């Protein structure tokens, strides 16, 4: 894995990137399906249209990341920090967003079908046009 290329469109399928410092990385349209990104630092990372199916992003720091149009279906985002992230039109169906920080995140038009949002902080999150059919909401949902 030492020679992996990290850049736009990279093939990082099932890559082990646990705890990696990837702040500001340009990973647009990258294939990160099944990747281990647990506790990775992805502050302001560019992940628009990235393929993150079933990726492990548990406790990852995605503050301000651009995930516009990304496929995060089945991804584990338990406790992830997505404060101010752009998740516009992202596919988050069946993802685990339990205890995630989504304060001020843009979830406009996102697909959140059957997602787990228990304990997620949705304060000031934009949810216009988001599909939340079957999503689990518990403590911490937006009180607007």
């Amino acid at each position, binding site marked *: 894995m030492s020679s992996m290329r990290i850049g736009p469109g990279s093939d990082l*399928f*099932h890559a082990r990137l646990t705890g990696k410092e990837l702040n500001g990385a340009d990973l647009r349209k990258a294939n990160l399906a099944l990747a281990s990104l647990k506790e990775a630092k992805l502050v302001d990372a560019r992940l628009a249209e990235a*393929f993150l*199916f079933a990726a492990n992003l548990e406790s990852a720091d995605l503050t301000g990341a651009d995930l516009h149009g990304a496929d995060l279906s089945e991804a584990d985002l338990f406790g992830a920090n997505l404060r101010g992230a752009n998740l516009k039109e992202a*596919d988050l169906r069946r993802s685990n967003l339990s205890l995630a920080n989504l304060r001020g995140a843009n979830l406009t038009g996102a697909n959140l079908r059957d997602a787990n949002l228990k304990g997620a902080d949705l304060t000031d999150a934009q949810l216009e046009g988001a599909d939340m059919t079957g999503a689990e909401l518990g403590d911490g949902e937006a009180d607007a």
Partner: protein
Amino acid sequence: MARMSEQVRQLVGLENLLVKARRRFRECEREAAGAEHPRSEQYRAVIERISDQIHSADQGRLKEYLEYLERDLLPRMGTRVEETLDGMVESALEVVDGRHHVQELRHDYADALDRVRAVRERLGLDPFQPLDIRFGLGTHPPHADRRLREAFDLVKGYLRS
């Protein structure tokens, strides 16, 4: 509960991901309704790569995995197969609504049967035993049992019609 080695746990994890990827692939196909879905190819590639990883596992690992399947997973298979059957029931309901062609339902049904038969064959069991015996192997929850029966009744009804 059987004890699992880390390697076997990885294989089981991959199988679970395979089920999820197949489900997403089918969803893409349904969403595109005949047209090319932008994610279809990516999901097809994921399915192939996970399958390759499972198949490339060494014989020792596979043997341990199959033993685990037989001892622990197969008795609970009703729950696992239920996921596939959920898709079939969904398709059946779409047929009822006149939104889906019956051919796709036949395909889903055949796919589910093939997978169950393949597992049984690998375990040295008769792959063509009647379904009710095959799914009656263990103690899956009553809900799964009921759902299985409903699904098969529904699907068989359509296949006969």
